[in-house]
Structure formats: structure tokens, C-alpha cells
């Protein structure tokens, strides 16, 4: 949105379908997102909304049916396998379960050095130094950690090691998929703070995928709310959380629980659960649970419209800001 910072990663009209027997699961249906340099873009939504698939399709880990992902001027889907591997080095991914993302039979030294070994970028003393620096950066003492195995570390420490491994190849973009949801709150705060520090220090851009609204708000500059394979609202994070315009964003925010018994806001409890992505509703996909749905919502698919600079919403009847 701010023209001064160039777009680093651009997802255009991404469609990802999976086949499930004879049926088709519409996991992602026309998602467009731009990640600018130095930005953190949050994607928030409930399970099954397609947020993880967006991350995987960006990495070309799942094939997209149509649409494009361009990174640093390359359309990733059009590259050859060899070119893709080389280009994709600039994007690294970190996953939810820190313990299962580390090979239990390898020492931390070799886990963190694996990208270096694969690309033969460093050997011997230089390799050792890079690994040590990487661990240092994430707050793990290399002298203690290097010769140990993942099971000797806690979940939070394993997540730090995963981050160290992701940073070894000096990526420009980090895709973080639910990286704190398996951690205790006290440790979660450590990892979120670490992520902010690393972002500032190495000039990273981050695609942050999570279901926890408060966590996403904390780390993100801009946030996209996803529902059933589509983006329903996109805005700067403070703007989105204070003035949600899509009924789904409003309901999601009002359902979130705060550690404060006095904050009993007027809650909108949605009935039912997200429909099956095998057979999504016609028109607006949220209409089956939307308290404001009208006939038009079933007939016509709402397109994203900008309601204020940098704030777009895909709804026929967006919630208007109450001027106070």
C-alpha cells in the first residue's frame, strides 16, 4: 500500500484445489496478497480456511491450479525445478511443531548446517562459525547445544533452533506457519519478541500465518482475514482490529477470549461451523453463518473493495464505522 517500499513477494489470484476421491476440495479460491519489503503480513483464520495452503503454495510445495506467485521478479510456478530450488532459497519456512520439524537422530550442529551442506556453501571452520552465529542470534548457547540432540531441548528451544536453521541461508522472506501455537504463553512471548528482533536486524519480511488473533495483531503490520479459501478483509493491523468491516472479522474478534473477566464485550456468537470446502456456498462464502446476510449475498460473489486507504473488504454490506 505504501508505494515507497517495493513488493517482494506477490501472490496473484491463487487457486489451489485438492482432489478428495471424486470430489474437489476448494482450499484456496482466488487469493491475492502482496508482501512488501520489511513488512510482516499476517494471515488469520479458522482451521480449514486455507491459510496454511497459501503458505505452502507460495513455496510451491503444493501445486496451484491457477494464479501466480512472484518473488524477486520470478514467477515461481514457471521456473524449472533447478531454478526453483535456487530462487526459493530466499524464502524459508518454519512450522508449527518444533520437535517434529527437527530430525531426532541428528545433532543440532548438523541440523542447523544442513542447508549449508546441501548447497555446499561452507565447510569446516567456516561452516562451524556460521552455525554458531545462527544459534547465538536466536538465543541458544552454541557451546551447550551443538553436540546435543533435539529431544534434549524444550519446545521453545526447538523452535529457536528451527528459526536458526531457517536463517542460515540468509533468506529475505520467512513464512511462519503457526510457529507459536504449540508453546506455552510465557515461551510464546519469548519467540514473538525474538522474531521482531530478527526481523529488524536482518531486514526480513514475514508472512505470519496463525489462528490466534492477538498473536497476529502483535506481530503484523497488515493482516488478511481468511474464510473458506477467500480473503474477506485486509487492512493495517490496528485499523482492522479497531474497525472490522467484514461481519466475519467482527464475529471472530468478538469470540476471542481475553484474560480479563471485566472485558465482556458484546459478543456475537456465530452459529454453526464453517461449511465444507468440497461444496462451498454460492455467492459470499460466509453467508450461511452471517447475521446480516440477504438474498444478494447468495447470488453474487462480493469482490474486494477499498473502504478506506489500505483497508479492503469483500462484502456487499460492510459494517460502517460509527463516528464518535
Amino acid at each position, binding site marked *: 500500500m505504501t508505494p515507497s517500499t517495493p513488493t517482494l513477494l506477490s501472490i496473484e489470484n491463487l487457486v489451489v484445489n485438492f482432489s478428495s476421491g471424486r470430489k474437489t476440495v476448494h482450499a484456496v479460491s482466488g487469493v491475492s496478497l502482496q508482501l512488501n519489503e520489511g513488512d510482516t503480513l499476517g494471515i488469520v483464520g*479458522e*482451521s480449514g480456511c486455507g491459510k496454511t495452503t497459501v503458505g505452502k503454495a507460495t513455496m510451491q510445495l503444493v501445486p496451484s491450479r491457477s494464479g501466480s506467485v512472484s518473488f524477486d521478479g520470478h514467477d515461481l510456478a514457471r521456473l524449472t525445478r533447478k531454478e526453483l530450488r535456487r530462487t526459493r532459497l530466499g524464502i524459508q519456512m518454519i512450522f508449527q511443531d518444533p520437535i517434529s520439524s527437527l530430525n531426532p537422530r541428528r545433532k543440532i550442529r548438523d541440523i542447523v548446517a544442513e542447508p549449508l551442506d546441501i548447497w555446499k556453501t561452507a565447510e569446516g571452520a567456516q561452516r562451524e562459525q556460521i552455525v554458531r552465529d545462527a544459534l547465538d542470534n536466536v538465543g541458544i548457547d552454541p557451546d551447550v547445544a551443538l553436540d546435543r540432540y533435539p529431544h534434549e531441548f*524444550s519446545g*521453545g528451544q526447538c523452535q529457536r533452533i528451527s528459526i536458526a536453521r531457517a536463517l542460515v541461508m540468509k533468506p529475505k522472506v520467512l513464512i511462519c506457519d503457526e510457529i507459536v501455537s504449540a508453546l*506455552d*504463553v*510465557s*515461551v*510464546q*512471548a*519469548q519467540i*514473538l*519478541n525474538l522474531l*521482531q528482533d530478527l526481523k529488524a536486524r536482518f531486514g526480513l519480511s514475514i508472512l505470519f500465518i496463525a*489462528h*490466534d*488473533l*492477538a*498473536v497476529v*495483531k*502483535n*506481530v*503484523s*503490520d497488515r493482516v488478511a482475514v481468511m474464510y473458506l479459501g477467500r480473503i474477506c478483509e485486509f487492512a493495517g*493491523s*490496528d485499523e482492522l*482490529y479497531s474497525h472490522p468491516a467484514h461481519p466475519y472479522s467482527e*464475529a*471472530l*474478534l468478538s*469470540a*476471542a*477470549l*481475553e*484474560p*480479563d*473477566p*471485566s*472485558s*465482556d464485550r458484546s*459478543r456475537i*456468537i*456465530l*452459529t454453526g*461451523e*464453517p461449511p465444507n470446502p468440497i461444496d462451498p456456498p454460492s455467492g459470499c462464502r460466509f453467508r450461511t453463518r452471517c447475521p446480516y446476510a440477504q438474498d444478494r449475498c447468495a447470488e453474487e460473489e462480493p469482490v474486494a473493495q477499498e473502504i478506506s486507504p489500505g483497508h479492503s473488504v469483500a462484502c456487499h454490506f460492510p459494517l460502517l464505522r460509527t463516528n464518535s
Partner: protein
Amino acid sequence: MSLTPGLDRSASTDESALLEVCNASTTFATDRGSLRAVDDVSFVIKRGETLGIVGESGSGKTVLSRSILGLLPRSGVLQEGSIVFDGTEIVGAPDKLMRAIWGAKMAMVFQDPMASLNPVVRIGRQITESLRLHLDLDRSEAKATALSLLEQVGIPSPKERLRSYPFELSGGMRQRVMIAIALACSPKLLLADEPTTGLDVTVQAQILDLLSSLQKERHMSVILVSHDLGVVASRTDNIAVMYAGKVVEIAPTATLFSSMAMPYTKALVDSTPRLSQPSHLRLSPIEGRPPDMTTARQGCAFAPRCSFATDRCRSETPPLVTSPSNPLHRFACWNPLNSISIGESS
């Protein structure tokens, strides 16, 4: 309540205690020595009351709820102290006695409904099982009750659902079925261990609302165990905060949040990101990690991570004392927050 034939409620007065946990400890024998997962815990739950138990992973909250249920393995476990439920001592009670309590007077809802439901048995039979066993209903009565239970927990087209298998339902629906099974015999105490942890936010709110409305309707006591302060904040009468096997603070919910005394409780609240805070606000994590429970400790278990710790905290274990300002508020800290001064140790 039509669902409680044969259950005598007249004997119990409203305000009497349903569950009394007194100096309960649970110790496991492990390869690395004995592990005291629950350490000298005492509290009382009255009829119709909800107690939230909060703590991080490894704090002992799940072992405590299993101890209350009498669901611990027979070997390698040492249980001390006493847990009296509705006049019956649970600690050391034989299985035969417990079988009359499980499901009938005390029921539970676990985190993972898929793992708790039998995947090859239809929903209907899983609900009617305990009805037929405990309440001695015949098939058609049990079926009618199961139907009304599914209605009460908000399952659409309950008649068809009785014939469904668990895999045919979504996570939220499965958790509703679990609640229906747990409530089948109108238990006096419901233990819900992380009942919404795997669920989406919008569904989580539905399930928690359902639990609290059913609780009010049936005047049931509930123990709500969660790692999430947000889950317990709005739906409990009292909250117990656990750390390293001990209850370190227990108070009426509003008191706990308005005048928390234990630095750990405050650190837990402060480390949680809030919707009301601006984005990019730096969080206050709790540095370090919980203690290794197998090694013997001196002093307060939280002292190594506490910013208020003094020498006394590292050498003497603080007892759970009653706050001078509120007799219902107890905490275990030598240097409580909000300048609450400790009188004589209880």
C-alpha cells in the same frame, strides 16, 4: 430434571462442599527419580460452583484432575493426602467403588474428542451406554434420553446423528457429543480438561457458553482446566493457578484479576498478547523455563524466574497463606504484589 430418576438431591444443601481436596500429592516413580507432579494441593469446591485451574504445560493440572477422578495407573504412583467427593474418599478407593461414581456422579470431558470417542461405535450407543448401566433405563427410554441430550447440546438433526459414527462429525460437534455423554447421568461434578483447545475461536465460544448454561441449569460443579487464562477468565467462580505441581494462588475470579498477589500469575497475564494492545507492542515473556520436577528444590519453585525473588525465596518454600484483605484469596509468596502484607503464616 427429568433425567435424574433415583438421584437424591434433597440431602445436599446448596452451599455445602462437593469436593474437598486436602494436602493432596501425587508422585510418580520415573527412571530419573521420583516426580512429584501434584504437591500438597488443597481446595474446596461447593455445589454449583466452577473452579478454573490454570497453568503451563507440566504444571500438574492434568495430573491433579486425574487424581480427583481416581484415574491414575495402579503401579508406580504414590497418592497422599485426601480427596473427598460427596462424602466418599477417592484416594485409595477400589475400582469397584469408583465404577459407581465414574459417569454417574463425576464425569469428564477431555481435550481430544476423537481420541475419547470409540471410532467404531455409533454416537447413540456411546451415549446410552452409561444411561443403561447407571440409571437402569431400557432401550427405548435410553434412546429418548440420548435424543434429548443431543438436542440440549445443540446438535442439529439429533435423530440422524444418533446413527452417525464419530468420524462423520466435525471437531466441534464431537466435543458436543462428548459433553452429552458426560452429562448423560446428571453428574454432580464435571471435569473439563482443556475442552476447547483443539477448536476454532468461534466454536470455542459456543462450547464454553454451552458448558456454562448447562451447568447453571443442572446446578452442577465444574472444574475447567486450561492453559489459557482467557478461557477461564469469564466463566469461573474461582481460579487456581498452578506452578510446578503446587497451587500458588487461588481466589474468586474477579479478585484474582483485580488484585493478584503472586508474581507468577501476573507474569502469566503479562506475557499473553491482548487484542486491546497496539500491534508491535513488546511482550513481557517469563525468562527461563519451569523447573525440572525430578530434582529436589529449595524455596519457591518460581524464584529462579521471578524478578522479585529474594534470598528468602530461594531458601524457604512459601506456604499458601490467606490474604489479609480477602479470606477467600490465598497465595504462596514471600513478596506478594499490590503490597499485600503477610500476617502470621497459616
